[in-house]
């Protein structure tokens, strides 16, 4: 009885039964199944989350969100909710993303990140009015990213037509090394090198082509001067030669070119101004990208 070999042999069947039982309940270690009541292990919450995490890291966001949403709401932790919000943002479902971020921003372990994400989303979508409304209402704030959010708030004024807030409070938000560049952008916004539409119209009315010359479309200006001048000359010449039909045709053509030149100068001034505005915006975006503003530090769920 005291033979240890015999004792092992006696308990071996029980030991094997335990193994059999355990392997039936936990059929396969990779299934991450700890729920012995699960009828179908692949449908257990742990496995669904595991699979959804995998899909999320594959950037298969719609499927990942679908999987997360299969889980009972009580089991959805803040990380999953934040991932659902980010996933919705990536696939363009902005309203779903924002409503979840609002919820997370008010109370969760990701409240700082969710708040920053709300502001960042609006900034990157060029919804500057929305960003300022969000900031002014102060419904949602982040202690950790307050500085960044404030920077975004002030920078948003540079992108649209709204008057800028005080220079000093603006530039003081940025490190001393960047203040000069920011001040330059502020100056470009406040004193844009726009062309006057009416000046272009008046110039072109006085001398065909002069309006386009003013808006720096030199090739067009020379062409207009030649075409209008030639039409006028041909009209006069034909009147003088008694070719009345041709003369009237050239007069009409000349008048059309003259009127078109005035109209075109106005349009050209507007396009010139649009270019000035576009250049400011694109230079500013380039500067922000170059200085790695608003890079997400928390999106490391897949690392």
């Amino acid at each position, binding site marked *: 009885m005291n033979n240890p070999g015999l004792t092992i042999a006696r308990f071996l069947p029980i030991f094997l039964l335990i193994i059999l039982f355990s392997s039936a309940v936990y059929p396969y270690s990779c299934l991450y199944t700890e729920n012995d009541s699960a009828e179908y292990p*692949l449908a257990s919450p742990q496995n669904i989350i595991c699979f959804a995490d995998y899909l999320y890291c594959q950037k298969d966001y719609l499927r990942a969100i679908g999987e997360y949403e299969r889980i009972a709401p009580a089991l959805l932790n803040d990380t999953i909710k934040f991932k659902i919000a980010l996933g919705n943002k990536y696939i363009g479902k902005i309203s779903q993303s924002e409503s979840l971020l609002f919820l997370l921003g008010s109370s969760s372990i990701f409240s700082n990140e969710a708040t920053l994400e709300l502001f960042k989303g609006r900034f990157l979508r060029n919804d500057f009015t929305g960003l300022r409304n969000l900031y002014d209402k102060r419904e949602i704030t982040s202690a950790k990213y307050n500085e960044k959010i404030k920077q975004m708030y002030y920078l948003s004024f540079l992108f649209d037509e709204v008057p800028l807030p005080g220079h000093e409070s603006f530039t003081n938000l940025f490190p001393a090394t960047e203040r000069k560049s920011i001040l330059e952008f502020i100056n470009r916004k406040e004193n844009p090198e726009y062309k006057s539409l009416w000046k272009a119209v008046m110039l072109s009315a006085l001398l065909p082509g002069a309006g386009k010359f003013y808006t720096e479309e030199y090739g067009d200006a020379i062409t207009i001067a030649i075409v209008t001048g030639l039409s006028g000359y041909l009209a006069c010449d034909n009147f003088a030669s008694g070719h009345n039909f041709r003369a009237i045709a050239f007069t009409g053509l000349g008048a059309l070119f003259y009127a078109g030149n005035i109209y075109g100068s106005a349009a050209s001034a507007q396009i010139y101004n649009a270019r000035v505005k576009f250049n400011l915006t694109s230079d500013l975006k380039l500067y922000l990208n170059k200085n790695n503003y608003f890079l997400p530090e928390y999106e490391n769920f897949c690392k």
Partner: protein
Amino acid sequence: MKISVNKFLLVIILPVLLSSGELCAQDYIKEQYDYSKELFKSEQYFDAITELKRLLFFDKSGAYNFEANYLIAQSYKSGARLNDAVKYFTISQMYARNDSLLFQAKLEVVKCNILRHTAGQSLNLLNQLERDEHFSNMQREIIYWKGWSYMFMDMWDEASLQFGKISDNHPLKELSDKVVKDKYSVSFAKVISYILPGSGQIYTGEYLSGLMSLGWAGLFGCLSAESFVADRVFDGFINSGLFLRFHHGNIQNAEKFAVEKNKRISDKALIYVQYNYKGPKP
């Protein structure tokens, strides 16, 4: 005696019991595969892909790697997402258990390339298959799909040649021959337009346009000659410019008509094949 019974248990039953866990897992995996296939059959391709991805994620044994990737690719193909289909057919090739499955997956890549009008790529793949001795008994099929590739590359004479290798009266050979016969020569249309304005358009069956071209070129040719004769140099230059513009335009127009008509003939043939041809299609 007791010990020998337990030894028996240890040697015979233990491995069986230990593997039972895997067998159970395989049951779930098989069940998952069957469910995915059902979704595929009921044309719920998006959901089928989700379930197949789940299968691939949990099936660590890799038993369904070929089938799952192949079905994902087929689902994408059914949703006209041919780039994704090509990716997954290519992945499935890595898990092909034999030459027949490998050939099947490779051929699907060829078909996707034909459908997405990158038939040059499918032709390269078919040439590789033709040279591969593993597939020496599949030559007929390779030739057949080469014919299809040429049809989609608008090289109907080459397509006819390939289908002719299969059979002299292959329906697709007859169709390819008809397309070759019906098509217009673009260079001929341009050359005759150069010599006589409008003739290129008339050759392509656009009689009214041809006559209009002839009229404009004739009118401005005459007017410029008349102006130069009457010493009206300015009018002469203007009219000559207009003559040259219409003459040049007539050549461009003839080329445009020939190309457009040829495209229409090719398209008509492809539409006919899609709806009426009974043989294997991409």
